[in-house]
């Protein structure tokens, strides 16, 4: 069976003028996306998330490596029938209503009854039926993101790339968009998201790829990343030199418990004569994956 999206050893640099050294945006990126899978690329701003998605969408050419969409080059028309891309910034042609934006995109796919059906399906998928007559450029951010999502899915695309879909959304709209993405994946589409803020993605994604300075430093199922426990130790004065396995936080110390018990970790703190005011154990969140040291990273 053909893999919907495949990147192997992808590298991309951006050259700069006046003899300044080029910026390495992506280096040695390898990933495969299975049918019906939702994966999320997480990383800080400037880590290369958007570049990676643009390469996968065929908008940017990699300097090295291979990108394949169902076995095809991503800038071929065949691949572009299969890949949808929802960019981060909602930009629509002025003076067009929501329905007209979708009709404009649908005309790129087909004509006649096909087009009417495409628009109707996209409106339903984006939950935009009630806003069909509104000007697209005047939409609130949540509806604008749903419109981006709807145009990305238009034409029954098998792979959807969504760049930072939750930025600027409140919890209700995040949940709403998450549900729509899950329904799409349940129908067999592969979804690759990017997000600088992974909080709340736990219930949505199957797999997480942590991108740091253009390199995928972690590629693991969400369940693996979320399986651990973290001990938070609150102290009056955080120590300059933490005990082995601990890291300093704003309120004290923090350590991944792994198979250790919380009591054993606290005993270590006491052995270092640290004044512990309070402690608590919490489950790991996806945001912890962003901060985990590289040596602890399972590939």
């Amino acid at each position, binding site marked *: 069976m053909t893999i919907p999206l495949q990147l192997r050893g992808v590298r991309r640099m951006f050259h700069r003028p006046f003899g300044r050294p080029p910026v390495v945006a992506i280096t040695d990126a390898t990933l495969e996306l299975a049918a019906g899978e939702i994966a999320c690329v997480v990383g800080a701003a400037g880590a290369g998330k958007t570049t990676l998605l643009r390469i996968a*969408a065929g908008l940017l050419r990699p300097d090295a490596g291979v990108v394949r969409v169902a076995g095809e080059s991503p800038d071929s028309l065949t691949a572009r029938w299969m890949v949808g891309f929802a960019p981060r910034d909602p930009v629509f042609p002025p003076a067009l209503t929501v329905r007209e934006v979708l009709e404009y995109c649908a005309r790129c796919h087909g004509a006649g009854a096909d087009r009417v059906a495409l628009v109707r399906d996209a409106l339903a998928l984006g939950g935009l039926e009630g806003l069909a007559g509104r000007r697209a450029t005047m939409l609130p951010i949540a509806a604008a993101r749903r419109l981006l999502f709807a145009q990305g899915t238009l034409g029954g695309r098998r792979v959807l790339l969504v760049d930072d879909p939750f930025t600027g959304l409140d919890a209700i709209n995040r949940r709403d968009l998450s549900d729509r993405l899950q329904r799409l994946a349940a129908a067999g589409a592969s979804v690759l998201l990017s997000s600088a803020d992974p909080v709340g993605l736990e219930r949505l994604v199957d797999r997480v790829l942590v991108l740091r300075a253009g390199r995928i430093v972690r590629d693991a199922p969400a369940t693996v990343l979320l399986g651990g426990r973290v001990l938070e130790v609150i102290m009056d004065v955080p120590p300059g030199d933490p005990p082995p396995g601990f890291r300093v936080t704003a309120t004290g110390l923090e350590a991944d418990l792994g198979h250790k018990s919380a009591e054993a970790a606290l005993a270590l703190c006491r052995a270092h004569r640290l004044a512990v005011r309070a402690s608590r154990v919490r489950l790991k969140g996806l945001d912890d994956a962003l901060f985990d040291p590289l040596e602890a990273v399972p590939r």
Partner: protein
Amino acid sequence: MDFLRGIRAEWPLLRIRLLRTRLGLWLVLVVVASLWLERTATAPDPLTTSLRAGALAAVLCIGYLAGSSPDRRALVLPLLHPLTSGAVTVGRWCAATGGAALVVLAVAAHAAWTTGAVPASLGAALAGLATAGAVGACTLALVWSGGNVLAGLLFVWLALAGGAPPESLIGASHPGPTRLLLAGLQEVAPAPWRYRAIASGDPGAAIHAVAWILIGLMLARWRARRLAGRTR
């Protein structure tokens, strides 16, 4: 097929912009002003009117259909679908030229109605359409490079000097380097004065127009790819 889909996708933009922006009003003003100038001229020339109206309407249509900053940023949208930048460019040019064609046909129909010279009016319409096409393609490349400021400058230039042959600029007393440069541009670039000859069946002028349509569309296509961030 790809180009046909491009034209079909871009064509409705003309109707929407005609009805919901000031484009429709501007085109009506171009028709009215052209007819008023013809009526008040000492030697009325329907061909000059048709050429000028076609050029000005083409610049306006491109400005309203493609030149604004949101329009340029939104170019990425069709290119995220199975459509090439060439198809988008040709589609947008067709839509804009279609708008300009309405103006040219209105002016030519008025000339045919008032003078009764139908063959001459047909020639004027043909020359006006060629002018609209060539000026539109070049304006498309200009606005996708520098925005509507360039379209505004071109509009003023075409309105003031579009019909003047370059010899009239060089022939003026003490021509400076700027005037020489403008005369050179007037000689090379698409301008209404050159396409007068299309009405009398000159193939050289027609070839000039077709060449500029192709050059303009190729440059615009290249700019469209850059604007959409498609740097493959």
